[in-house]
């Protein structure tokens, strides 16, 4: 997965580099402005769209090469509804902002602010039941960034750690 991301990142930077070379920063060249407007447009759109749970497929799609994703599945003995409430509690205690929660569909969207590593991350959590075992589906994506520089993985490990810790009552 990381090798694929690396290849995509290198290809992206080579492509952008090539594009900028042939455009040669000529202020009369309209394609330069088109490129800049597209990139700024995507950047602004991602920031505006990040709080919408319905746009999860856009951020988590494998075809969206401008975001880095990490997903994992955790099994739990807790009932779905209780697990949902517990995760909300853990996310809030962790200082993450819960921007969307659906008790009916058991879906959560939490956001993390900008850091020096990334432009912020979206954390999507939902619950499914498979063979009477409750599974928590965790996905962390960067809002904009081909690499998360470990931020997605850190979100997962700290959430899991805090969840385990919170079971000591």
């Amino acid at each position, binding site marked *: 997965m990381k090798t694929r991301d690396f290849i995509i990142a290198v290809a992206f930077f080579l492509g952008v580099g090539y594009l900028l070379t042939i455009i040669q920063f000529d202020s009369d060249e309209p394609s330069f402005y088109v490129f800049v407007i597209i990139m700024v447009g995507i950047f602004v759109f991602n920031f505006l769209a990040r709080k919408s749970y319905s746009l999860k497929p856009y951020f988590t799609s494998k075809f969206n090469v401008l975001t880095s994703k990490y997903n994992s599945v955790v099994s739990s003995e807790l009932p779905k509804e*209780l697990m949902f409430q517990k995760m909300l*509690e853990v996310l809030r205690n962790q200082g993450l902002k819960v921007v969307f929660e659906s008790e009916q569909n058991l879906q959560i969207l939490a956001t993390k602010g900008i850091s020096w590593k990334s432009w912020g991350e979206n954390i999507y959590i939902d619950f499914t039941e498979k063979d009477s075992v409750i599974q928590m589906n965790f996905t962390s994506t960067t809002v904009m960034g081909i690499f998360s520089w470990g931020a997605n993985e850190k979100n997962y490990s700290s959430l899991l750690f805090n969840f385990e810790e919170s*079971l*000591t009552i």
Partner: protein
Amino acid sequence: MKIIVNLDVMLAKRKMKAKELSEIIGISVVNISILKQSKGKAIRFSTLAAICKALDCQPGDILEYLD
């Protein structure tokens, strides 16, 4: 071989709701529910003491060892 939490039994005996207990001892309803279902990883002495005080009972009334 496991420890069973009989918190729901004690709550019923004292005619107290989980929400009421959570307000008295200052822990969330979610945590009370986890305790009631014996799904917690561990229980702090301070939590146990607070529950015993609120329900006027002994730790043995709440925790039971099953072989």
